[in-house]
């Protein structure tokens, strides 16, 4: 699903993220952990070609598309439809003046899901159906689609973002600290949904988080970043049980 080699992202002269190797297979969950400012989000955005103003080099392939070489149109077709992004702050990530349903409908039309871009009644019904199913998959009441972002809770917003990915038929979900703004009780729920999707639909998940404990509960493999460099990577069990790098060790020791 995702294949990264020698990725380097630099703003001006400053290299903020350097990832020699990162692969995410179908149904797999890979996590990137590290302290604030270590380049986690940057890496994620670079995978979708969303690092504006940065100098990016290396090889990046997402769902079979070479992100570095693809034309903007091809890149836009991958975004959303194949690889979906779930962002940290739930409400701020949704356009405040757009009803959830409208956003979803526009995205579906854009990618021609559920009846393509034609606007006949039949297509509309197709879209409605897709939307309803997606909501069900994340245990959301479809009535929520008529609401504005500020009228829903953080957990609902995160689940809606995931529903968007499902409706669009995404194969990879990239989640950037999807729960750090949430209460632990709500966090548990969102993580639950992600797990289910992975198990039931074989979605690949790339998770960014600074919470080692949380990562340890769902990730198959882990990348540890510090100051823009991957200091350690490998199967979660291995990395977290006996870390090689002193920084990882420090991280683990600091945990209560």
């Amino acid at each position, binding site marked *: 699903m995702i294949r990264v080699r020698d990725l380097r992202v630099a703003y001006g002269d400053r290299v903020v993220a350097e990832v020699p190797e990162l692969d995410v297979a179908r149904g797999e969950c890979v996590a990137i952990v590290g302290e604030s400012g270590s380049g986690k989000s940057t890496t994620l955005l670079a995978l979708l070609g969303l690092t504006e103003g*940065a100098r990016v080099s290396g090889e990046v392939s997402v769902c079979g598309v070479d992100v570095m070489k693809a034309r903007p149109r091809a890149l836009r077709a991958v975004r959303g439809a194949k690889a979906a992004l779930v962002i940290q702050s739930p409400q701020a990530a949704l356009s405040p003046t757009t009803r959830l349903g409208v956003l979803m409908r526009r995205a579906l039309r854009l990618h021609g899901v559920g009846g393509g871009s034609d606007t006949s009644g039949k297509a509309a019904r197709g879209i409605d159906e897709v939307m309803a199913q997606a909501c069900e998959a994340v245990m959301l009441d479809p009535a929520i689609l008529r609401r504005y972002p500020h009228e829903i809770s953080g957990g609902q917003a995160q689940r809606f973002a995931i529903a968007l990915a499902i409706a669009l038929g995404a194969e990879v979900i990239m989640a950037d600290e999807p729960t750090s703004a949430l209460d632990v009780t709500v966090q548990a729920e969102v993580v639950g949904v992600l797990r289910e999707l992975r198990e039931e639909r074989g979605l690949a998940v790339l998770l960014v988080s600074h919470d080692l404990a949380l990562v340890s509960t769902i990730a198959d493999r882990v990348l540890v970043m510090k100051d823009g460099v991957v200091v350690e990577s490998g199967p979660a069990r291995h990395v977290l049980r006996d870390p090689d790098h002193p920084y990882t060790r420090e991280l683990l020791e600091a945990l209560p």
Partner: protein
Amino acid sequence: MTVVEPRRRLPMMPDRLAAFGAVLLVLIAASALFAPWLAPYEENDPKPLDKLLEPSSSHWFGTDHVGRDILTQILYGGRTSLAIAAAVLAVSALVGVTLGVVAGYAGGWIRDVIMRITDIFLAFPALLLSLALAVVLQPSVTTVILAIAVTWWPWYARLSASVAASVSTRSYVDAARCLGVPAPVIVWRHVLPNSITPVLVQLSLDAGGVILTAAALSYLGLGAHEPTAEWGLMVQQGQTLFTTNWWVVTFPGLAILVTAFAFNVLGEGLRSALDPRRTVIR
């Protein structure tokens, strides 16, 4: 290996824009300041027999209806116009920011009272207020300054009140209160310095507007008057000559345009460097 380069930006954006405006302004200010040395003729020295001469090598911008060199008058007039702008902004910022910061910090009924007063002045048609005041106080440069400042301060009050209100919710203000720092000191030490940046940006955006308004007042005969040289007054006096002697009105008009433009460029540049959102109209 593929490399994606960032998209090229124009070299002028956005901080250079501010620098450009600043340089332009320094030039304008310097030419006003050094008017006695730069001006080719004596200030306000009418020679009726040389009136309305076309621009030429001896009078670059021509002469006006009483035979004064227009370039000379523009150079000296810059002193008045820039002084007016500076004074208006100083007075209205002083009043507006003081009231605004107090309102923003104090909140509650104090804020309500100050903001309602501000609203009243905002609802009062600005030009009418200026005009009325100019009539009450008799035309003079001081009058122009007061008349414009009266309509200008509410903007700063509003702006700084909203900024100060948000600054006042910062935890360092709470921390200072907990440390027992008296309210006036908190306002002076924490709230004011941290609210002032948007006001400064607004000031430079507004300077152009002040010059235009002052020019309009003089133009109406309610501001600067003979023998003070002032750009708006020059335009007013040359106005009926527009079709016959274009230079009399065009050069002072251009002086106003260029100066207002320079201030705007500076303000816009500062704003995009500091805060992209805020715009207040003059």
